[in-house]
């Protein structure tokens, strides 16, 4: 019995808790990509760098607060910085919309042209970010590190395995919950949100109904900016900020959005968690898990790992390919808001 509890605790510590946090970050990212897709109708490759930009602003703000001695210990200063980051990221996106994207919107170019434009924006932003903050890794999580440490957990429960929950993980999940709820409330309950969905559903009819496209697009970029800033900051808070990583993050985020059905916000959020949990389940070494559950003589020799951790990005790719083969519209029927 105690062995089973130990095994479950093991999974909770190494799979469930980290995946909830990572899944939340992906969910926010995928929600941003899906909103752009639903309203502006293109795959935004620059989204990763937009997240990175938001994180950079958060870090600068945190440094500013720290040097001014402002803190909200035991919570990380990042929570204070996020609103600033959201505002500046939104400003950046509105400038990009005005200077770059709007022109192509008016031309009604093919989605593939839009994609290249977004790739151009992606590299422009990447250069800008690295110029300002450099390429080295930055940890900006301050405040209390753990909500519960593995050793404390072991002491309380008397189990051999412990669950540790880092403050950043808890914050990630809570902030995501709040933000996602707010976005869905906005989309489903407010007049402006409904007009966004209408525009996504049927652009021509939305025009006939007197919905102004410029307004819808601006609101969309604002939402996307907020989501990107929060998603990026939470990811950096949890795992440390490295500008290069955000380029690679585009793949799991796209995979999450496609698995959920591109353009479908609920799907995007669920897709984020699907990707995170699959990565963890497939790259987890089950040796200790089986040692608890199986009789001693059956205990495995190797790590019992399906795929080494280096390949976790491959997991999202394989899932993506499977979805494209089996159900190209995604789990939740894409292309609506």
């Amino acid at each position, binding site marked *: 019995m105690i062995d089973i509890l130990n095994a479950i605790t093991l999974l909770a510590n190494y799979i469930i808790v980290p995946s909830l946090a990572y899944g939340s970050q992906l969910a926010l990212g995928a929600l941003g990509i899906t909103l752009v897709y639903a309203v502006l109708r293109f795959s935004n490759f620059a989204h990763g760098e937009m997240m990175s930009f938001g994180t950079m602003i958060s870090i600068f703000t945190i440094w500013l607060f720290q040097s001014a001695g402002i803190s909200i210990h035991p919570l990380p200063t990042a929570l204070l910085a996020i609103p600033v980051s959201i505002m500046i990221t939104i400003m950046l996106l509105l400038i990009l919309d005005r200077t770059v994207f709007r022109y192509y919107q008016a031309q009604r170019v093919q989605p593939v042209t839009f994609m290249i434009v977004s790739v151009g924006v992606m590299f422009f932003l990447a250069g800008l970010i690295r110029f300002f903050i450099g390429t080295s890794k930055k940890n900006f999580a301050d405040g209390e590190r753990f909500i519960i440490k593995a050793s404390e957990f072991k002491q309380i429960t008397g189990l051999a395995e412990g669950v540790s929950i880092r403050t950043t993980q808890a914050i990630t999940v809570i902030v995501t919950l709040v933000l996602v709820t707010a976005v869905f409330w906005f989309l489903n309950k407010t007049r402006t949100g*409904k007009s966004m969905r*209408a525009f996504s*559903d049927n652009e*021509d*009819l939305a025009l*006939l*109904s007197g919905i102004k496209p410029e307004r819808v697009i601006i609101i969309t970029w604002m939402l996307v900016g907020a989501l990107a800033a929060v998603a990026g900051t939470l990811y950096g808070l949890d795992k440390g900020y490295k500008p290069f990583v955000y380029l690679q993050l585009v793949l799991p985020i796209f995979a999450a959005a496609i698995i959920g059905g591109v353009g479908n916000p609920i799907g995007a959020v669920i897709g984020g968690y699907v990707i995170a949990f699959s990565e963890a389940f497939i790259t987890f070494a089950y040796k200790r898990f089986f040692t608890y559950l199986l009789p001693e003589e059956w205990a495995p020799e190797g790590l019992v790992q399906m795929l080494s951790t280096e390949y976790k990005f491959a997991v999202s790719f394989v899932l993506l390919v499977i979805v494209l083969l089996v159900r190209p519209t995604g789990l939740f029927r894409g292309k609506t808001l």
Partner: protein
Amino acid sequence: MTFFEGIGMHAGYGASMILNGCSISVDKGQIAVIVGPNGAGKSTAMKALFGMLPLREGSVFSDGRDITQLRPEQRVLLGMGYVPQTNNVFPSMTVLENLEMGGFVRRDDLSQTISEIFDLFPILKTKQNQAAGELSGGQRQQVAVARAMMTKPNILMLDEPTAGVSPIVMDELFDRIIDIANTGVAILMVEQNAKQALQIADIGYVLVQGENKFKGAGTALLNNPEVRQAFLGG
């Protein structure tokens, strides 16, 4: 002067002219029906009247005002409603939300209009929380018409409202359209089902190559042997 009219309209896409001087008019409470062979410019005439296609010549008047230069969304504010032939609902939104979007330009309370529309289309009331894309073809057309009614228009334009629905549903839709006309709305519609549509029409227009070929009361056109011969299949 009639309530709503387009006079001597010329319009087209690129080098090809579709409308060559046709004129259409309809008064409040009347139903006007445009019929004609394929490619005669029926739908184009509707688009031109609603400002979705710029006129090269001619003008459009509503309630005595020249609205030729107004954009479609401005015409909506003036009390014009338009139901496109296809893609005329927001498929992923509920029936109720479709109606709310129809009344998007209105800043006042919509609930009064919504309940009036539910009286007119009782089936929509029972389906109000269902996504419009999940409804049957006829119900979806009702949503489309209802959406356009949300601005309380005095001119309602319908582009082939009965395309692809069964004859029973068609009859029901026509009944609804007559009901709407009876509330004092001017109705202008393009129809493939020419015979049935002309039966309920106060005025009928037969369009050929972008010009008015015949014009007259619906029943008169139905009884006109030339029209019967050429356009109504005998």
